[in-house]
């Protein structure tokens, strides 16, 4: 009945990769992955937070506020990694029309927006004691803010295209063009920044002893694990929603039935 519709198909495709990435099969293997991933995330966070709060020294310059970095840096890392992931998924959508790439893009966008918001918020909290102001038009913060606006645009785009299948390819195109633009935006903002504020304290100018580096690394891994857990859940939700929709539609169109034809 639905043999050519990959979203609702239940038969197995031939090669191992399409089998792994096939929506139906994806649902069954990913179910077993969520609990371990979530457990790993919790363990990593427990260790990471313990290190961050109790087992790392305060910075000689910034004191205790350095601990904000253990949240800020991982979020900032995710804000860029998630866009990269979306751009790769967009290629999957455009070139191979792969339904899992569509799901991946869609599930990643709001997560990206959220982590970028966290990066901006913690950046502001850090900025207050460090620079004496919540917001500084520093190169990094400005490009992160622009990135946040791009995420918001993408989330709005997904919302507006809800229910339109063609939306996926169109959004993929926008995601890719955005990805090509990010380096240009970053370059222009840095250029603008050196023009207007030549002597700002550079956030990356810190020397980083191992006592800070270790908890930071654990927290980065923990955040990444958190993202992949949420991403997996988001993708599963998307597939299930698609299935619920198509079941409903099939009920409605049951009277018409699917049509076929041959030459006479």
């Amino acid at each position: 009945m639905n043999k050519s519709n990959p979203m609702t198909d239940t038969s197995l495709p031939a090669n191992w990769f399409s089998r792994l990435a096939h929506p139906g099969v994806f649902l069954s293997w990913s179910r077993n992955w969520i609990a371990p991933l979530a457990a790993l995330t919790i363990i990593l966070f427990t260790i990471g937070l313990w290190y961050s709060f109790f087992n790392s020294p305060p910075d000689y310059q910034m004191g205790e506020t350095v601990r904000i970095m253990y949240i800020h840096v991982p979020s900032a890392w995710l804000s860029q990694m998630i866009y990269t992931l979306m751009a790769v998924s967009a290629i999957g959508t455009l070139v191979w029309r792969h339904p899992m790439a569509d799901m991946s893009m869609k599930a990643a966008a709001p997560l990206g927006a959220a982590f970028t918001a966290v990066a901006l918020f913690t950046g502001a909290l850090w900025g207050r004691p460090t620079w004496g102001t919540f917001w500084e038009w520093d190169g990094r913060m400005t490009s992160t803010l622009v990135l946040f606006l791009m995420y918001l645009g993408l989330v709005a785009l997904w919302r507006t295209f809800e229910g339109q299948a063609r939306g996926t390819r169109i959004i993929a195109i926008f995601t890719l063009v955005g990805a090509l633009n990010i380096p240009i935006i970053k370059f222009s903002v840095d250029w603008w920044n050196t023009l207007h504020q030549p002597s700002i304290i550079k956030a990356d100018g810190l020397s980083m002893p191992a006592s800070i580096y270790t908890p930071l690394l654990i927290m980065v891994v923990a955040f990444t694990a958190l993202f992949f857990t949420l991403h997996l859940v988001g993708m599963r939700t998307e597939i299930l929603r698609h299935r619920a929709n198509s079941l409903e539609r099939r009920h409605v169109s049951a009277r018409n039935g699917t049509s076929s034809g041959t030459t006479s």
Partner: protein
Amino acid sequence: MEAFMAIIVRDIRLTLRSGGSTITLLAFFLSVGVIIPIAVGPDKETLARLAPAIIWIAALLSTLLGLDRLFVADHEDGTNASLHHASISLEAISFAKLIVHWLVSALPLIVATPFMAIMLIMDMPTLLRTIAALMLGTPALVALGAFGASIAVTLKRGGVLAPILIMPLAVPVLIFGVSAISPAPGSGTSEAAFMFLGALSLLAFAFTPFAIALALRAAHE
């Protein structure tokens, strides 16, 4: 080439005959230029310092104004469907539409800039630099805007969405555009900004036709 020119001639005719779109554009551009000095206050030094930024913001907002009909009209009346079978590619058609879009939505702004300059107490060298910067930079603005419009072509609320999508992408144009007009004193940044501005426009005009054609094809599915 005949087909390429046919698109250009048709789009110019459509703009001229659809009544008042150029007037609306100019009125909007000048209104932004009037409203900001009123909000900022009439202090001449402040105005002169802000003038480049005001002109670029007015230009950005004005080029966003005509986007909602740019591809939607052709999509809704079935023209886009038939353009798939034209003797030139959708990429070439998009390129032709970009050229027209610049002619009808950016060129009038550049022509109106001297009037704006008077209101903003701009001196002559700055005005000349402003016009040069607009000539170099508006193609990129127009191309990005057209790309946003092609993304939103099937959406009922696309007219609102396209500007939101495009503004972050327009950040580099604004940065280099304003820097080209008001360089930091005693540095070669103005020349550098002009070069970057030209590079942005070249890149945008070279690549957006492909992205637009992709989006228009996807809009049919």
